Structure formats: structure tokens, C-alpha cells
């Protein structure tokens, strides 16, 4: 690793075009490409020599050589830049240098930026069921390609030249990307971490382009929010379950027979049962009607009328049952059991007033007896499911957003697990 003593600064003139060139990592770099004409000069020895002469027009880069910025808490200077391309497009790699830290990379792929470092101990990269395991993260294979150097300016610690080719494989574990590059017998692994545009803006005082697509290793905001919410989701669901269990345990489920009601031939002739005593302060009650109808129906109207005050709580239910035989065999429809939930009933003595309307296949009223019973103070479950739904609405929305984001992320990959291809 270079140190301050070896990382001296020196100015030279291009041996081809005469343009001034500042060597910012002298002693650490071995070649420099003239920012004006691209001519490559060997700077590994005191006597500088031309490696290859070019007469290229200087290429524009978003960040200039010599730009300094603080990335992940460490100051770096841009000493080199190259444009590379593959089947999927081109990108820029800036070589960063800090005499105390060494070399790092800043990669600009369209509107996405990454901070990269070469991995020295590649034995720590292990294959696993997903692809690779490195640094406690599982990486999935994302892309395979061939990268070609299109343009080079500035200093480098190896002799890079236009036309250099490498076979590349990318593995992702957002916001991380493992890049494998093979050039001849040389194998280089790099670890990239995705940089938020705000980090680039703060480091180099530039205005990054707005992101209009999803990068391979771009972190998903929905995933991060979901991760932050996880403990609150479980805590809320746990509390809801506790409240519900307390309700279930304290519910009395007291069975109170009301009586046998026989529908009258004419509507409006009600029967009065009771009184029944309901002793829970505010209770949910379930009134059940059981009968043995055959091809007929009964609509039952009820009123719980509180003794003394005359307060009335009205509700209704229907019982209908039909059966027969057709070409497909025997069939039946409906049920001989009907029930109604009667919510929020104060404690007290109540008369149960019943009226009905009924009919059979011929329109004649039914006179089949109906057994009425009431279960006092039952545990409601609807409120629990409503509370769970409210608690889970936002997490479910975030899961959907994550799905959409991940589908977009993988749409450019040959290893797309979503099996959809982004529309051209």
C-alpha cells in the first residue's frame, strides 16, 4: 500500500502533445494517460516514456481529475478515469487515491454511483446455494458480460489501455455488488456499495442526474422501511392477540334457552318470550334459530325489550332450506340454522319479542316450530380481524412496493427470477 512519502505530486508535460499533466500518486501509479490526447506514458521509472501514442479528443467526464471529496468518511482525490462498455451499455470508473488508504473506485453507471474496493482475500468468497457468500452476505448472480475499455485519462496503478477486455460476472446483495473480472490469467474481485445521490452531491458538489431506473444493487426503500417497522408490526400483532385472548377468556358464553316459536299464518302476530336476564355490563349476544324446514323459508324479526325502561334492540335473521332430486342426483340448499349477533347490550332483564313471515314452494306460510336460544356474552372476533387488517395494511403495501421494485431490478438480468422481460 502506498504511503505519504511515495505518494508525491509532480508535474510533467505530455510527450505527445505537450499538455501539462499532474502526477498525483507518483510512486504508486505506473502509467498516466494524457487528459488532452490520451497518450499513455510510463511513469514507473524516473525517465518517463511513451507506452502508446494517441491523438484522441479529450473526453468529458462528470468529475474532473484532481477533484477531491469525502466518501464514507475518508477524503479521496480522483487521479484517473476510464470509460468501459459491455453489451448492456457503458459506464465510467474513477480511480480514487488517498496516500494513507490507497486506491478505491467510484463507479458511475448512468445515474447510479457506487464506491468500490478490490478484495484482497478472495478465499473469503465462498459459493453457496444462491450464488456466493462473502462478508456475512449472500449474493445472487445478476449478470455475465464482457467489458471493454473505451477511453482512459489520468494515472493508474497498472498499464490500462483502450481496448482492454475482461470477462465479468456480477453478484448482488443490495446495496452490495460483488464484481468478478477475469483478464487472461488474472482474476480480480471487487466489492461495490451503492451510493445515494446525496452522498455524491455532498462529496463532489455536483448535481447527480435524477434516477430513472433501478440499478442492480440499488437498495429498495420499501425493504428498508419494512425492516425498520418489523418490531413494531410484531409488537402490535402480539398486543392485539393478547387483548383478544383476554376477551375470549373473560367471555361467559352463557346459554339461555328462549323457547319454541311457531310462525303464525299472518305476519304481525308476535310472540313474547322471557324475561331473560343478561348480567354482563355490555355484551355481545348471539341468538340462534334452529328448525327443520323443508323447501320453505322463514324471516324472523326480533326485539330485545328491556324491562322497566322499554329500550328496544331490534334485529333479524332468516332460515331457509330447500332440497330435491334432479338429473345430477340429490341436492340441497340453505340451512335449518340461523343466527344473529346482537351487539352492545347493557345488563338487565329483557323480553324477547318475535315476529315472522314465511312461505313454502306454494306460497303457503310455514308453521314448523323453531327452537330459539341465546348465547349471552360471546367473544367477538371481527374486531380482532379488523385491528389486524389495519396493522397490516401498510406492511402489505410495502411488500407490494418491494415486489414492484425487485421486479424492476431484475428485469435487465439474464438470471431474472420473476421471468419477465422489461419492455423495450
Amino acid at each position, binding site marked *: 500500500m502506498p504511503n505519504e512519502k511515495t505518494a508525491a505530486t509532480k508535474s510533467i508535460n505530455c510527450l505527445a502533445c505537450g499538455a501539462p499533466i499532474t502526477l498525483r500518486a507518483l510512486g504508486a501509479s505506473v502509467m498516466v494517460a494524457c487528459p488532452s490526447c490520451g497518450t499513455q506514458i510510463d511513469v514507473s521509472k524516473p525517465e518517463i516514456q511513451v507506452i502508446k501514442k494517441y491523438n484522441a479528443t479529450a473526453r468529458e467526464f462528470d468529475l474532473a481529475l484532481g477533484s477531491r471529496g469525502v466518501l464514507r468518511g475518508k477524503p479521496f482525490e480522483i487521479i484517473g478515469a476510464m470509460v468501459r462498455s459491455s453489451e448492456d451499455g457503458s459506464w465510467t470508473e474513477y480511480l480514487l487515491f488517498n496516500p494513507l488508504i490507497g486506491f478505491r473506485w467510484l463507479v458511475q453507471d448512468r445515474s447510479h454511483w457506487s464506491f468500490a474496493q478490490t478484495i484482497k482475500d478472495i478465499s473469503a468468497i465462498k459459493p453457496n446455494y444462491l450464488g456466493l457468500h462473502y462478508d456475512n452476505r449472500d449474493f445472487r448472480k445478476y449478470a455475465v458480460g464482457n467489458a471493454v475499455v473505451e477511453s482512459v485519462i489520468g494515472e493508474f496503478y497498472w498499464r490500462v489501455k483502450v481496448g482492454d477486455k475482461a470477462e465479468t460476472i456480477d453478484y448482488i446483495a443490495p446495496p452490495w455488488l460483488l464484481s468478478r473480472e477475469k483478464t487472461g490469467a488474472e482474476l480480480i474481485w471487487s466489492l461495490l456499495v451503492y451510493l445515494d445521490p446525496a452522498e455524491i452531491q455532498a462529496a463532489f458538489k455536483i448535481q447527480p442526474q435524477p434516477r430513472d431506473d433501478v440499478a442492480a444493487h440499488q437498495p429498495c426503500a420499501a425493504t428498508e*422501511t419494512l425492516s*425498520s*417497522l418489523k418490531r*413494531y408490526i410484531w*409488537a*402490535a400483532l402480539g*398486543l*392485539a392477540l393478547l*387483548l*383478544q385472548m383476554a*376477551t375470549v377468556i373473560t367471555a361467559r358464553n352463557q346459554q339461555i334457552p328462549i323457547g319454541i316459536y311457531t310462525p303464525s299464518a299472518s305476519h*304481525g302476530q*308476535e310472540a*313474547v318470550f322471557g324475561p331473560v336476564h343478561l348480567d*354482563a355490563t*355490555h*355484551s*355481545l*349476544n348471539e341468538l340462534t334459530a334452529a328448525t327443520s324446514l323443508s323447501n320453505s323459508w322463514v324471516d324472523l*324479526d326480533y*326485539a330485545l*325489550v328491556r*324491562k322497566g*325502561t*322499554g*329500550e*328496544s*334492540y*331490534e*334485529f*333479524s*335473521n332468516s332460515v331457509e332450506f330447500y332440497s330435491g332430486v334432479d338429473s345430477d342426483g340429490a341436492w340441497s340448499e340453505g340451512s335449518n340454522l340461523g343466527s*344473529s*349477533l*346482537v*351487539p*352492545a*347490550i347493557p345488563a338487565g332483564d329483557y*323480553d324477547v*319479542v318475535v*315476529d315472522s313471515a314465511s312461505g313454502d314452494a306454494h306460497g303457503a306460510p310455514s308453521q314448523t316450530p323453531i327452537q330459539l336460544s341465546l348465547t349471552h*356474552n360471546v*367473544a*367477538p372476533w*371481527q*374486531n*380482532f380481524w*379488523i*385491528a*389486524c387488517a*389495519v*396493522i397490516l*395494511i*401498510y406492511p402489505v403495501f410495502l411488500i407490494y412496493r418491494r415486489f414492484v421494485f425487485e421486479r424492476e431490478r431484475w428485469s435487465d438480468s439474464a438470471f431474472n427470477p420473476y421471468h419477465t422481460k422489461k419492455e423495450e
Partner: protein
Amino acid sequence: MSPLGQGLNPKIILYIATCCLALGYLGVANARGFVPFASPTSKYSGTTAGHFHK
């Protein structure tokens, strides 16, 4: 974002408030024996006889 920043994330605060509302509803509704979508009930004063002829 710092842990403090995460703690102050408006989305998380809003979510916690929503959970509190849901749990508050569950507690109060269960205690009052209330359920939505149950048979419609109405309340009025009168006598036992003639409730369906008002």
C-alpha cells in the same frame, strides 16, 4: 440515517399511531361488546307489546 433519525422517521411515527388506534379500537369495542356489520339494531322507548307496529 442515524438511529436517532430512524426513531424520528415520520412514517414510523405514523405507523405506530395507526397501530395504537387499531389496538384502542379493539380494546374498547371488545369491552363494549360491539361488532360492526352485526344485525342492525335500533333503540327507542316504548312497551313490550306492539314493537313491530310503531
